């Protein structure tokens, strides 16, 4: 039998409605993988100019439950933009950031809605391709911060689709580039992602 997209959506609705009425969020050991578009914004102390570019971000979370409402876990978040640049038309830099943080997910009510906050270590790596010359890598490590919200939509007893909207902030200190030194760099990634959670 051929199933149209509309039938599939209707079927998903039938399946999720009774599940949503149950306890919707994760219990015991849980894990989540998510992926989606991101926007990165790089600011520094010496300049009022802010560089903004888009890219892709992925996250992986694993954790356990502290109580019915509060989950504790570890989150890793990675961002990659291969056409980054510190000038308006510059696309000669590969920007990568990584964050590992202890996160708390708080489900204030009985729905799948949750708030997320966490703090940990953040890293930023910028590979510059001067012409001519060998690629130059500028790296910084510092403090990472993440906060946001999301919603778990259970699709079976073990799995849930998850929608996430989050900000990830990496304060990584000074970056030494071939022609300049960028001081007190703060990279902020805004991230919207779809994920799948298993418990």
């Amino acid at each position: 039998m051929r199933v149209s997209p509309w039938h599939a959506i209707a079927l998903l609705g039938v399946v999720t409605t009774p599940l949503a009425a149950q306890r919707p969020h994760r219990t015991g050991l849980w894990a989540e993988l998510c992926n989606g578009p991101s926007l990165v914004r790089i600011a520094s102390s010496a300049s009022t100019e802010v560089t903004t570019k888009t890219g892709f971000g992925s996250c992986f979370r694993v954790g356990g439950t502290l109580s019915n409402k509060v989950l504790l876990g570890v989150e890793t978040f990675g961002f990659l933009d291969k056409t980054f640049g510190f000038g308006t038309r510059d696309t000669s830099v590969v920007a990568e950031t990584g964050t590992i943080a202890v996160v708390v997910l708080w489900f204030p009510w009985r729905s799948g809605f949750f708030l997320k906050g966490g703090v940990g270590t953040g890293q930023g790596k910028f590979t510059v391709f001067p012409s001519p010359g060998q690629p130059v890598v500028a790296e910084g490590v510092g403090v990472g911060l993440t906060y946001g919200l999301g919603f778990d939509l259970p699709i079976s007893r073990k799995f849930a689709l998850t929608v996430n909207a989050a900000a990830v902030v990496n304060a990584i200190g000074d970056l030494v580039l071939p022609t300049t030194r960028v001081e007190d760099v703060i990279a902020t990634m805004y991230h919207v992602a779809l994920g799948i959670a298993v418990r």
Partner: protein
Amino acid sequence: MFAALAHLPARVAVALLLGAPAALHAQQVQTPPPDSTPRGPVSRARAFPAVQQALLVNVFVNRLDVCCLDMPTQRVSLNSWSRNLRAGWEWDENQFGTNLFMHPYHGSLYFNAGRSRGMGFWESAPLSFLGSWTWEFLGENNRPALNDFFMTSFGGIALGEMFHRLTAMIRDNQAHGGRRLRRELATLPLDPIGGLNRFLGRRRVSQEPNPPEHTPGLLVVRLHAGARILSDSLIKTAGGLPTVMMDLVYGDPWLEPYHKPFDAFIVRAAIGEGGINLLRASGRLYGKEMTGPEARHRHLFQVNQRFDYASNSAYHIGGQSVEFGISSRWRLSRNVRFRTQVYLDGIILGGIDAPGTGVGERTYDFGPGVGIRLQGVLEIAGVPFVVYFLQSEYVHAVSGASADHYVEASGLELTLPVTRRFGLTAQGIDYGRLSRYSDRPDQERQFPEVRVLLSWTWVSRQRTPQ
């Protein structure tokens, strides 16, 4: 809603700020006493007014700054909001005391908007983050400062919970008349939002049972007054200064198993050099006994949240951190015990000064770090006589100089009892710092300090521990 409120005249903002708890009063028939934290999902009847009040604190402070203090940075508009949301975080250049002490105090107001309405520690913590975030992006027209967000949020939680518990202890719901009023007024500097809610919610006069936080089990207050001599190894100077210190112990982790965050905490504060120059606090976030309470030698695993602020004429260091480790109590004889602590910590964000640090007008660096803390205490009949501690921290600067700072503080404290409550205390502390810069020579510096103090100790052991 907040957008509209930000443009209101100060008196309207004040009226709304005062009106929010009054509106809550109508719902108080269903809500529990202010310091209990019932299980189950957060009640909207408590959460929404708490969120509203945390936001109104910002409106109130903003309007006050504009109208009374004429601060140009607080003149906000839709343009400044848009600019801040687009530009995002930066590091600010405020003074050490403003960033590492006043901002955490501000954060405690947001936190206690929740705690004073019966929300729990973990339920109130997001209010600190929410209040801080909205203030940074919407309450000022300069760009939001990441260091302020960290200090206000994490520091606000630590100070807020301690203030909440201390004020619950001072307030007495069963007292009458002037005695009760004096207690209520005495708590206002520590918990103005809780005091305001009690006043407007008529809890100030109603007779009801005291919350569990009113009786922490063990309470020890030790006041010291005397002199300190602080020297600097680089410029070879030494100076004597008067000082007043206070040690506070709230709850005893050896007597009471872990129930709730900060059910046991310790504080050391010092006043001198024109204000508060030391505030160190550590509160239990989680604890588990690894041995039985009847064991000869006992061991506890604990996770603590720490608040550190030291700002004096020689050095400035402070920050927000979380530590975990083992506390042990070794029974040597019937009355003599030796207590040890071995803790590892992670500094979420710290501030430290050194030559060449800072940016613009700021003279210190910000950065995360890690560290270790060791302590040994010899106590006789439960009273500490000899204390030795060693603390070593590493701070990697992410704002200011391109530097790594290694800090070591060690000290010995001896207390000689003279009468039942009075004693003489001698403290010798050595604070050392090694700063490694990427673009200038390293610098090492020591700040030895000696304190001679007259001490007064007051101990209270209540029957209903929380």
